[in-house]
């Protein structure tokens, strides 16, 4: 194998970030076998073979996209789902919308949970306040002229709301990810064929 091929395979290995070590090695072995076989059978130059394979980073992206989506659509970890949607947000408007949905949902869920845990520490500052400035859930700028109506029940309500947002966001994103996967495969196909043409 020439240094050019080794460099290509190294770039591919480095860029396969969404894969386990075993998957990564198997993919690199397969691409290495493809290059060897092409070289022996067709007599093409290494540069031509690598050009036909496409840049290592793009090849890795195709593998990573599938792997990340597959894992995220099975995962229940908000952090992993958020990371995956962030990755997809950079690929198109649908991915961006999904990321915003996931971000807002998880931030809202996290904020409710935080309020629930802080309520016992700051019972007079955190609550569901109703007064002259309207309805405020959380910490108002001033409690003057407002009444806290949930009292000790605030913690339970905030916990339920927080868990509800976290679960609801996870379920919604997991349901929408496979749809994104289909549309992105099609979009990628168009890009690649345009490159060939």
């Amino acid at each position: 194998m020439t240094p050019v091929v080794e460099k290509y395979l190294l770039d591919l290995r480095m860029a396969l970030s969404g894969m386990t070590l075993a998957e990564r090695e198997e993919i690199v072995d397969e691409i290495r076998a493809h290059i060897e076989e092409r070289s022996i059978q067709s007599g093409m130059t290494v540069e031509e073979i690598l050009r036909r394979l496409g840049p290592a980073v793009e090849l890795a992206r195709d593998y990573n996209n599938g792997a990340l989506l597959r894992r995220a659509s099975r995962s229940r970890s908000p952090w992993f789902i958020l990371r995956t949607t962030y990755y997809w947000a950079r690929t198109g408007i649908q991915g961006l919308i999904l990321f915003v949905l996931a971000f807002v949902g998880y931030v809202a869920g996290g904020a409710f949970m935080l309020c629930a845990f802080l309520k016992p520490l700051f019972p007079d500052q955190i609550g569901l306040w109703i007064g002259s400035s309207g309805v405020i859930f959380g910490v108002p700028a001033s409690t003057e002229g407002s009444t806290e109506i949930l009292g000790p029940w605030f913690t339970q309500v905030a916990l339920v709301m927080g868990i509800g947002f976290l679960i609801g966001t996870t379920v919604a994103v997991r349901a929408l990810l496979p749809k994104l996967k289909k549309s992105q495969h099609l979009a990628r196909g168009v890009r690649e064929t345009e490159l060939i043409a």
Partner: protein
Amino acid sequence: MTVIESANKWEVQLRKGCLEMAVMMALFRGKNYGLGILRMLEDNSNLLLSEGTIYPILNRLRQDGVVDSEWVESELGHPRRYYMLTHKGRERALDMARAWLELASGLERLAKPVVSRKEKSS
């Protein structure tokens, strides 16, 4: 975007949308490796295919459980990764082939008069 550009883009999408099905059809004939599948598709279909496309598709099909793989030492002295359809994959390939033929024959009845009328007028 012009009408021609739009039609070209549609054709490209159509071809690429068929790619996964084409790979499964190629494997229906028996186990094969990446380059072998590429050659079969080049010889038997007019799908435009960049070489880097085939491997992520095969990987995805394997993760979906419709394709299995094994490494075999080739006569050229290096290992090849052969792919074969699983039982689930064969069933899916059959369903896809039936659906495709049904769709294609229906559309052909609509498309043929369009082409023949266009040829007559020109």
